[in-house]
C-alpha cells in the first residue's frame, strides 16, 4: 500500500510537469473555441448537415461572399448576371481553382453539386433552381423555376460551401466525418465529434475573396477548433492560454475581459435581434392596447447601458439595422414611453389598485414570462420583468430548456417570452409571423388575413431585389402596427483573442468569422 501511494505521488509530479510543457507556445498554430451557438456539429458535410460550425467555412469556399454591410462579393464566382425576368442567373467562375484532392473546380463541379441537395433538409436553398447548364468550362447558368431575388444570400451561406464531387461520392455517409474535401484555405485533418477539429494549411491556396488582404496561402499552418461547452470555462481557457481565440463571447463578459491585459476583443455587427414575442391569443394580450403598453414599458437604452455596458444597440423593430427592410416609418418603431404605457392600460380597463399590480374586474395583471436556460437570456429576462413591473404588470419567470419551451409554445401555454434569433435576412419575418407556423416559430400565435397576404407577396411575388425589399418592408410595417412582439436588443458578435499569441484583423469583414479572417491572422513571434 505504501508503494502505491508513492507511485501516485510520482505520477502526480509528472502530470504537473506535463501541464507546464503544454502551455509552451508552438509555432504558427492557433487554437480557436467555437461560440456556444455552434457547438455539437457532427459533420462537415455542408449539403446534408443541419448544423455547421465556423470551421466549415475554412474547408470550403463559396461562389459568393457577403460582407457585414450585406453587400455581395465575388469569390469562386468572379461575376454574375440576373436575367431581367429573374428566370435565369449566369455565373463566371474563377480559373485555376483546385480541390484539396487535386481535382479541378469548374462549371461541371457546380452542375454536379446542385443536384446533391435533392432530398436533403437543405433542399429549400436551391428549390428555385430548375436546372444547371454548363455554358463553357468556366461559365454556368442556373435556370430558375421562379424568380429568386434571395439566391445570392443562399449561395453565400455555409451550407453552400462547395465540396469536391469525387470525394463526396466516394465517401458516402462518412463524408464530413472521417474526411472532407473543399477548395478552402485549410484542409480537414481530424475531427473528434464534440471535442475538437484540426485543420492544416492548404499551401496551394491562391483564390481568396477581396474580403481578405492576404490573397495567398494562410499564415497559420494549423488551426485547432475546440468545443468548450460552457462560456465561462471558455473565458478561463482564453485567460490561461488554453485557447487563443474565442468566438462568440457573451456581451456581459466583455467587462470582465477588459480587465485582462493580454486579451483583446473585436465587435462585429450582430446578425440577430433579442426580442419578446407576445401571444396575441392569450388574455390580456388579446387586447392590442395591452400589447402596445408592454412595448412602451421597455427601456431599451437602459438595457444596453446596464446589462451590456453600452455594447450593441437598442432594437426598435424586428430586423438588424444593416438590412434595408429595417428602415421603417419611425412612428411604427417601439420605444420607451412609460406614461403612455400607463395611459393605455388605464384605457384598457386595467387600473392601479392598492398594491403595485393593476387590476381589472378583480383580476390582477399577472402574466407568464418564459425564457430559455443560458445566462444570456435569464439576465435579460430579469431586467424585463423589473421594467414591466414598473407599469403595474407582474410577470412570473419560468426558465425552460430549448426543447421544452418549444413544446410550451406549441401547446399555447405561453404569454410573454424573451428570446433571440440569428439571421441576417428579411425572410425571418415569414419564419416567425407566418400563419402557417402557429405556436412555433410563430410564437405570437398571429394569423391575420392581411398579414398572410403581405407575406405571400413578399415571399413569392418579388421579381427582383428592389421589389423584394419594398414588399418585405410593407410586411414588416404591418407586423409592427399589430404589436406582436417587443424588440429588446441588437447584440454584437464578440470575438476575443490572446494578443500575446495571435493577431486578428479588426474590423472583421464578412457577416461571420470565416476564412477571410483566418487568412489574415498571424502568430505573434
Amino acid at each position, binding site marked *: 500500500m505504501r508503494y502505491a501511494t508513492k507511485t501516485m505521488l510520482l505520477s502526480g509530479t509528472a502530470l504537473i510537469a506535463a501541464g507546464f510543457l503544454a502551455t509552451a507556445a508552438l509555432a504558427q498554430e492557433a487554437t480557436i473555441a467555437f461560440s456556444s451557438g455552434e457547438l455539437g456539429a457532427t459533420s462537415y458535410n455542408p449539403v446534408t448537415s443541419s448544423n455547421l460550425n465556423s470551421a466549415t467555412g475554412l474547408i470550403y469556399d463559396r461562389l459568393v461572399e457577403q460582407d457585414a454591410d450585406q453587400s455581395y462579393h465575388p469569390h469562386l464566382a468572379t461575376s454574375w448576371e440576373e436575367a431581367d425576368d429573374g428566370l435565369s442567373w449566369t455565373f463566371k467562375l474563377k480559373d485555376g481553382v483546385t480541390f484539396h484532392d487535386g481535382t479541378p473546380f469548374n462549371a461541371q463541379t457546380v452542375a454536379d453539386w446542385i443536384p446533391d441537395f435533392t432530398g436533403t433538409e437543405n433542399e429549400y436553398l436551391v428549390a428555385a433552381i430548375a436546372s444547371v447548364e454548363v455554358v463553357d468550362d468556366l461559365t454556368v447558368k442556373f435556370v430558375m423555376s421562379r424568380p429568386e431575388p434571395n439566391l445570392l444570400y443562399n449561395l453565400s451561406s455555409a451550407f453552400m460551401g462547395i465540396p469536391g464531387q469525387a470525394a463526396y461520392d466516394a465517401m458516402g455517409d462518412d463524408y464530413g466525418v472521417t474526411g472532407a474535401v473543399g477548395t478552402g484555405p485549410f484542409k480537414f485533418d481530424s475531427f473528434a465529434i464534440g471535442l475538437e477539429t484540426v485543420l492544416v494549411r492548404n499551401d496551394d491556396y491562391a483564390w481568396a475573396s477581396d474580403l481578405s488582404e492576404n490573397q495567398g496561402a494562410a499564415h497559420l499552418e494549423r488551426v485547432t477548433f475546440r468545443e468548450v461547452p*460552457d*462560456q*465561462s*470555462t471558455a*473565458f*478561463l481557457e482564453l485567460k490561461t492560454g488554453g485557447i487563443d481565440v474565442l468566438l462568440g463571447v457573451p456581451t*456581459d*463578459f466583455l*467587462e*470582465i475581459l477588459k*480587465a485582462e491585459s493580454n486579451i483583446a476583443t473585436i465587435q462585429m455587427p450582430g446578425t440577430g435581434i433579442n426580442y419578446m414575442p407576445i401571444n396575441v391569443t392569450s388574455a390580456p394580450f388579446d387586447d392590442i392596447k395591452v400589447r402596445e403598453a408592454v412595448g412602451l414599458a421597455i427601456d431599451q437604452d*437602459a438595457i444596453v447601458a*446596464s*446589462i451590456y455596458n453600452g455594447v450593441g444597440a437598442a432594437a426598435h423593430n424586428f430586423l438588424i439595422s444593416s438590412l434595408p427592410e429595417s428602415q421603417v416609418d419611425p412612428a411604427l418603431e417601439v420605444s420607451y414611453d412609460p406614461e403612455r404605457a400607463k395611459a393605455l392600460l388605464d384605457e384598457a380597463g386595467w387600473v392601479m389598485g392598492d398594491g403595485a399590480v393593476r387590476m381589472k374586474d378583480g383580476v390582477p395583471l399577472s402574466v407568464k414570462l418564459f425564457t430559455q*436556460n*443560458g*445566462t444570456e437570456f*435569464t*439576465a435579460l*429576462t*430579469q*431586467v424585463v*420583468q*423589473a421594467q414591466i413591473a414598473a407599469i403595474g404588470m407582474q410577470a*412570473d*419567470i*419560468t*426558465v*425552460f*430548456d430549448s426543447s*421544452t419551451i418549444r413544446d410550451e409554445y406549441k401547446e399555447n401555454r405561453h404569454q410573454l417570452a424573451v428570446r433571440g434569433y440569428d439571421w441576417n435576412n428579411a425572410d425571418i419575418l415569414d419564419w416567425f409571423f407566418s400563419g402557417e407556423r402557429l405556436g412555433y416559430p410563430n410564437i405570437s400565435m398571429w394569423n391575420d388575413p392581411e398579414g398572410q397576404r403581405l407575406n405571400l407577396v413578399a415571399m413569392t411575388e418579388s421579381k427582383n431585389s428592389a421589389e423584394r425589399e419594398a414588399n418585405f418592408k410593407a410586411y414588416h410595417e404591418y407586423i409592427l402596427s399589430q404589436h406582436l412582439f417587443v424588440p429588446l436588443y441588437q447584440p454584437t458578435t464578440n470575438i476575443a483573442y490572446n494578443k500575446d499569441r495571435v493577431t486578428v484583423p479588426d474590423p472583421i469583414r464578412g457577416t461571420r468569422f470565416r476564412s477571410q479572417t483566418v487568412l489574415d491572422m498571424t502568430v505573434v513571434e
Partner: protein
Amino acid sequence: MTSMTGTAARMLAGFGTTSLGRAFGTWLGRIAGGFLILLLLTAIFAPWIAPFDYAAQDLLNGNAPPGWPHLLGTDQFGRDVLSRVIYGARTSLSVSATAIAMSVGVGMTLGAAAGYFGGFFERAVMTVVDLTWSFPDILIALIFVAIIGPGLTSTMFAIAIAYLAQFTRLTRAQIVRLKRETFIEATINLGARPRHILLKHLLPNAVAPVIVVGMLAIGDGIVLEATLGFFGLGAQPPTPSWGAMMSSGTAQLFLSPWVIIFPGVAVAVTVVAVNLFGDELIRALDIRDRIRGA
C-alpha cells in the same frame, strides 16, 4: 385514519424528546444544533432579518464588492447578496425538508410493506428501488425535471425520488430484523392481526433510525437542490436559492466572486452542521448498528 394518526403520534413519542436533548450533550452537538436552530429562525423570519428586498434590482450598482450597505456585496443586477442568502435559506431548507419528508413517507410505507409481506412483492419492490438507487441522483433528478418542467415543485419531487431507495431499504431492514425478535413472535403467537402487528409493534420500533437518516438526508437534499440550481433547473428567478445563486457560472468567480462564494459557504456549513448533529443524534439514540443494517 384515527388509528394512523395515533400511530404517528406514538412513533414520534417513541423517538423521544429526551434523545434530542442528549444530542445536545456534547459540545459538537451543541454547536451544530445551535447553528441549525439559528438557521431555521433566519429562514422563518427572513423578511424581518434581510436588510433589503431580495428581488430589488439596482442595475447601476451591480457587482458591488462586500461593504456598506451591502455587507456581502451585490450581484449582476445590483441585488443584495446577504438578503438573497438569507431568503435562499428559506428556499433551500424548505425544498429539501419537504422532499425528504415525502421520501421518508413513501419509503417507509414501501419498505414496511416489503419487509412485512416478503415474497414476490418484496422482491419486486426491492428490484425497482435498488435500480433507482444505482443511478446517480443527479441523473434521476435531471431526467425528472426534464419531464415535468423546471421549478421548485419538480425539484422537490426529483429529490424525493432520488432518495426513496434509501428509506425503503432502511425501513425494510428494520422490519425484517424486528420480525425475528422474540417479542414479535410472542405477539403473533398471541393471535394478533398482521395490520395490528405492523402498525402497533413493528413501525414504531423502526421509526427512530429512519427519522435520523432522514435528517441526515436533508443535508444531501440541500446539495442536490444546489446542483440542480447550478444547472438552472431549480428555483426560478428572481426567487433565490443557494444553488440558483451559483448558476451564473465560473466567469462570475472573477468579476464578483462573492456572488458564488457566499451561497457555496452557506451550503457547505449547513450540510456539515446537519451531518454533525445527525451523528450526535445517532450516538444519543444508540442506533448506529441498526442504521448500518440496511
